[in-house]
């Protein structure tokens, strides 16, 4: 678990707003050192690492987690050193006022989202929806100084170093989907001493939050025989739809049934979890899963894919919460499922 926490801290802080993953790629390669026989960074911002099992004609299992994060890009540099931004991916403006961000310009600088002073607020303001357009980012520089550091299009991300909560829960930014990258690396550590029945290819794909383009292209390049797509899923919270009540924090990875995944591989995953006593939960999302699973499954001539998700709260905020035990159980499931593939599916 300590190892997972360490990796979670490192992966969480990667600067990789969707579409500008290249900024974080060097660091990704550093963090992946020692895990792979070979690796490459694709032209559309994905990291691909490969491990060969050394067997002639062996099949390839793809493990996917997206490395991009939601965030913003600068749309205007304003008087007084304020920046206007537009969102990249789904952002809730309600959590932004007075929050901290990092602006990845020529140098990385701190920014604070503005909040309207009480004396400027109108009486019925709380009755109206908040909009990102009404906020700006305070950088503490003058407009002229700022123009030397940032430009239109500069990416901006949340700033939220990982902290530990009770019960092995942790809070931080971009666990969607970096925590799954962590679960993959931890699984590879578990597999290190084992005899692999298949080759393993890992894709830390870019561009998931903005249309799955990293997974689409990396899967094409890898041409795997089957895939485990790893993403996060909303755990139940008060007032969430009732059908989420069985997605619990600490309940282990959630395995999805969907038309965007392979039923056969999904059932195999469930059986593997049961056989090995790995806590897990089931989720049904018949149509779009909102993950890379569809893009991977339909790659080339088709790739049987299973979607495994880590329960998470406060998705897309600067304080996403996950439990280390769920990450660990997800790693175990990846490990056991990979080992079980010697008979194919």
């Amino acid at each position: 678990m300590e190892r997972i926490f360490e990796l979670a801290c490192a992966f969480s802080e990667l600067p990789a707003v969707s579409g500008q993953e290249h900024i974080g790629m060097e660091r990704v390669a550093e963090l992946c050192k020692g895990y792979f026989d070979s690796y490459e960074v694709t032209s559309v911002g994905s990291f691909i690492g490969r491990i060969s099992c050394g067997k002639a004609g062996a099949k390839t299992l793809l493990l996917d987690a997206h490395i991009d994060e939601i965030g913003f890009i600068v749309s205007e540099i304003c008087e007084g050193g304020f920046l206007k931004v537009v969102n990249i991916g789904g952002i809730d403006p309600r959590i932004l006022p007075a929050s901290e961000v990092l602006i990845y310009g020529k140098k990385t600088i701190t920014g604070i989202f503005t909040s309207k002073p009480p004396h400027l607020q109108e009486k019925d303001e709380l009755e109206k929806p908040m909009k990102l357009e009404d906020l700006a980012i305070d950088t503490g520089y003058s407009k002229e100084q700022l123009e030397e550091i940032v430009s239109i299009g500069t990416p901006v991300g949340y700033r939220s170093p990982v902290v530990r909560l009770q019960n092995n829960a942790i809070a931080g930014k971009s666990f969607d989907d970096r925590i799954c990258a962590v679960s993959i690396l931890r699984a590879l550590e578990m597999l290190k001493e084992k005899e692999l029945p298949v080759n393993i290819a890992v894709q830390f794909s870019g561009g998931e939050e903005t249309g799955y383009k990293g997974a689409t292209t990396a899967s094409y390049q890898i041409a795997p025989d089957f895939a485990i797509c790893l993403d996060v899923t909303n755990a139940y919270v008060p007032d969430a739809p009732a059908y989420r009540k069985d997605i619990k924090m600490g309940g282990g990875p959630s395995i999805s049934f969907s038309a965007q995944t392979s039923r056969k591989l999904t059932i195999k995953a469930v059986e593997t979890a049961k056989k090995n006593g790995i806590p897990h939960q089931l989720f049904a999302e018949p149509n779009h899963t909102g993950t890379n699973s569809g893009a991977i499954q339909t790659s080339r001539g088709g790739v049987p894919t299973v979607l495994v998700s880590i329960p998470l709260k406060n998705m897309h905020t600067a304080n996403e919460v996950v439990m280390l035990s769920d990450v660990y159980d997800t790693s175990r499931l990846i490990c056991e499922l990979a080992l079980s593939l010697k008979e194919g599916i």
Partner: protein
Amino acid sequence: MIERLKKYCGCISPSGCEDEIRELIIQDIQQIATRYEVDRMGNLIAFKKGRKTPDKKVVVSAHMDEVGLMVKYISDEGYIYFDPIGGIDPRVVGGRRVVIGDKRIYGVVASKAIHLQKKKERGMVVPLEEMYIDIGCDDKKSCEEVVSVGDVATFVPNFEEFGDGLIKSKAIDDRFGCALLVELMQEELEYDTYFAFVTCEEVGTDGAKQVAFNLRPDIAIAIEATTAGDVLGAPKSRYACELRKGAVISHIDGSTIYDKKLVEYALATAQENNIKCQLKNVIAGGNDASAYQRTAAGARVLAVSAPTRYIHSASNVVCKDDLFEIKKLVLALLQKGF
């Protein structure tokens, strides 16, 4: 002053729970104060002998408390519901990190994922009474082992310099005032002066009322952090005050009409000494000056404030140079005498 401010901003001391900050201040002043005492309300009153004893009793005052949250109810799911301590805009609470109680338990003010929100919920601010803190517990019992009803919380300490000479932190309101008072006490003063570090300003200037009653000053100067409205899109006429324009002097705010002669004296002193200074141009807010003005037979009052953006949030923002100008101005006033 900046190092001291950082240290003070790190305290978890919302109104009514000022012990931590008071202890730090006592450590810093015990060698330099002529004498000091802590009164029944928890106010810390220090006296520093000057070269002369003036005709008028002067107190410089800053408040030790900060806005915060108090634990009200722990639900069966282990979530913590709370009330604000002092005035907090719900818009700066959602999704923020807090630290709770003496055990310093970290928590996150939950915010429902955008994917789970109904259309009519989108963008609508959640009222404080419907927000809850998640500390990672999944039931009431485990939560109650570390957090109890009545525990207090604040935003997480996050002091840092950024931009061109700015600082962001929780609680600059009014740890800046506290840090400044200690800096002033380190100077060789011309006149005997009282320095009051008061409690409970954020819930109604309650501490200052007792200090005013017990001390009966002739002149009280409140050192505060005041809202700067110089944010993008705000009209200049509604700025109240601006960063980088120096000490803020108020003619009038939401609770006090200041002593005209003192205001003019402060402005003239600033001019004589080439100290940057600005007038607050909006009638809003309030501070301990109102308590000094109205308690017992009253006192003549002045407020000298630091222009502060995003006050009462997780990230108050001030300019270092403004803080230095304020120190120069208040010191010049004290040395000149009244």
